[in-house]
């Protein structure tokens, strides 16, 4: 799993197609599929499942709030706003 995709100064390198990382690493317009998620918070985990974030689902980064957080993602034909902190617990693989 590639997690070391941040430079020392916090600047992020764009994940390329086929690379793996966290949902929070994606830039606007990128698409990825969910590989797994690891969240110790049972409530939040359940909530994410209920909202359709299951293994194999495709997620696109649609909009990012002006201050950089939260992020509006598109999945299963609808859009959902989610905080970066919660996106960090979702492992993905870039597809587009």
């Amino acid at each position, binding site marked *: 799993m590639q997690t070391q995709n941040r430079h020392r100064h916090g600047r992020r390198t764009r994940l390329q197609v086929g690379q793996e990382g966290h949902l929070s690493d994606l830039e606007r317009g990128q698409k990825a599929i969910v590989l797994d998620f690891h969240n110790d918070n049972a409530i939040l985990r359940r909530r*994410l499942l*209920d909202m359709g974030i*299951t*293994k194999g689902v495709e997620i696109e980064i649609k909009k990012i*709030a*002006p201050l950089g957080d939260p992020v509006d993602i598109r999945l299963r*034909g609808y859009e959902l706003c989610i905080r970066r902190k919660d996106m960090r617990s979702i492992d993905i693989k870039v597809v587009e």
Partner: protein
Amino acid sequence: MKVALVGNQNSGKTTLFNTLTGSNQKVGNWPGVTIERKEGTIIDTNIEIIDLPGVYSLSPYSSEEEISRQFVMEEKPDLIINIIDATSLERSLYLTTQLLELDIDVVIALNMADVLEKSGITVDVEKLSKRLNTTIVSISAKKNLGIQQLISVVKSGEYQNNRQDYIYDEEIENVISNITRLINVGHKRFSAVKIIERDRDYRPLLTDEINAQIDMLEHNYSMDSEQLIADQRYRHIGRIKKECSTQEEKGDTVTDKLDRVFLHKIFGLPIFALIMGIVYFLSVGLVGGLTVDFVGALFDGSETINILGREMPFVIAGLGPTLSGWLTNIGASPWSVSLVVDGIIAGFGAVSSFLPQLIILFLCLALLETTGYMSRISFFLDRIFKRFGLSGKSLIPFIVGSGCSVPGIMASRTVENEEERKMTVMLTPFVPCSAKLPIIALFAGYFFSSLAWLVTLSLYFMAIAVILLSALILKKFIYKGATSSYLSELPNYHAPSAIYVFRDVFDKTWSFIKRAGTVIVLCSVAVWFLASFTWTFNYIDGVNYHIENSILAGIGNAFAWIFYPMLGGTWSWGATVSAIQGLIAKEQVVSSLEVIAGLEGGGSTVFESGIFSFFNSWNAYAYMIFNLFSAPCFAAIGAMRKELGSTKGMFKAVFFQTGIAWVLATFVGMIGWLIV
């Protein structure tokens, strides 16, 4: 017959409920929680319908979900109407598939409102009905289409019974039927699925035998059972959607284009500031400036009124003076005249004078809400708020609270997380509401003259600081471990709907009048009594007995020690009593100061009379701080009680607010005491 209306948030559920019931609805609270419970009767029938909270699932985690789950399982409605939004079919059907596991029939109301507006999506309703094996009626809640058909289906009972189709892989279905054979509870299929998910409410039913079967499933699918069920459910839904619906990928929608402007990295925040500026200019500035004094004078009578900062002559005799003259003429006793005029009418006046600007504020906010912009505001300010244990959704109550705390506190219902909601309720009164502006105007105008605007600005910044600081304190000591998250939807931009806006403004205004009106009038009568009688119950007529003999003055003297340090070492029952009067309505602080100064005589303004000549810029600032941030008015305290759900919680909030205000005010006052 009893029907439950179930659906996601933003699915058009509220609109459908309003259309189905017309004005036949009763609003209350669900027991033990502060979530609104609406029930009514469907038009032209005697079918009872209950609007359940908007949920995405029947999990037991949020209070909304728990309520919905308990209701459908225990109250046994005869039918569930499940409204689903055709534009987000997949997510909507997730809830539908759960409902179809219950032993209750389900009729689906397929809301096509947005599909009709947007091309690119088609739904084959007949096929969908066949695949889900239940009755579907397509409607547009907004355009009032299909509603009659929905009603007649429900009324005639011509809907399909719940067949509880198999939706999972065979292996899982086998475990489900094994479990249903072993358990003896209602809603067998639903319960069996919940047992597989190891749902906390079903743990007692989790025997070793069942557990072994679940372990096996988890092993075979290499994921935990909760994930497995969600995954299988969405797989099933994915297949249905593929067969019954098409969605054309069209690139950017109008909403996407608008969001490129409104959520712009650089321009987004200035645009927000501009929009809010316009809202306040229109409501508090323009309409408020035009009407507050005018309406106040209609009730209390005055010779001049302040219109947009200019003194104007006022020729209409106020209701108070007119009634006073009339009552005196028919021989009413002075105290009964005073009760009507200074107690009841003054109370009504206090509520009414803020009504015009509140209506405009409600109107602007309803427009922002119905167009979809309000959700953007909480979306892009979430980042700042989450640092303080709040979410962006708390901002809406704060914005409304700048007009009046009462509707602000009520608006906290949109905050989903219970802890965050309670924090928001406790913090909203810190926002300087429009009734607090006269206090600022009086003190800042006299002691800081040309710098008054700077002082006013400093108080607003202090309010922001107090809110954020208090949030941190509350999080640290009271609402420990509240994990906040932000999962919500950005609705599409819509042209505002006139009916929605009208209804929303009307509802909010009416509930403000009801709540504020009753509390303020009752309490102003109580304070009137305290200010008008001595301890031996002699009426204060201004001849034999004076205001300093009143019960209120006695109370003032009993509490003056609290204000002693912040007033720079001055014992003042007058300032104390005036602050207490702020509990009726904050602008009462000003009129109380004026009344007491007037009775005392000497000097043409409040601060030239002997009794208040001790005020200087330091203790004036301290006194303003105290009045701005201490316990809000009774109407707002009442609203807090309702939204916090307990009297204990209300007292906690009031003590917390007053404590913060006292510490801050005393700090400023003491500095003044030391250096002046």
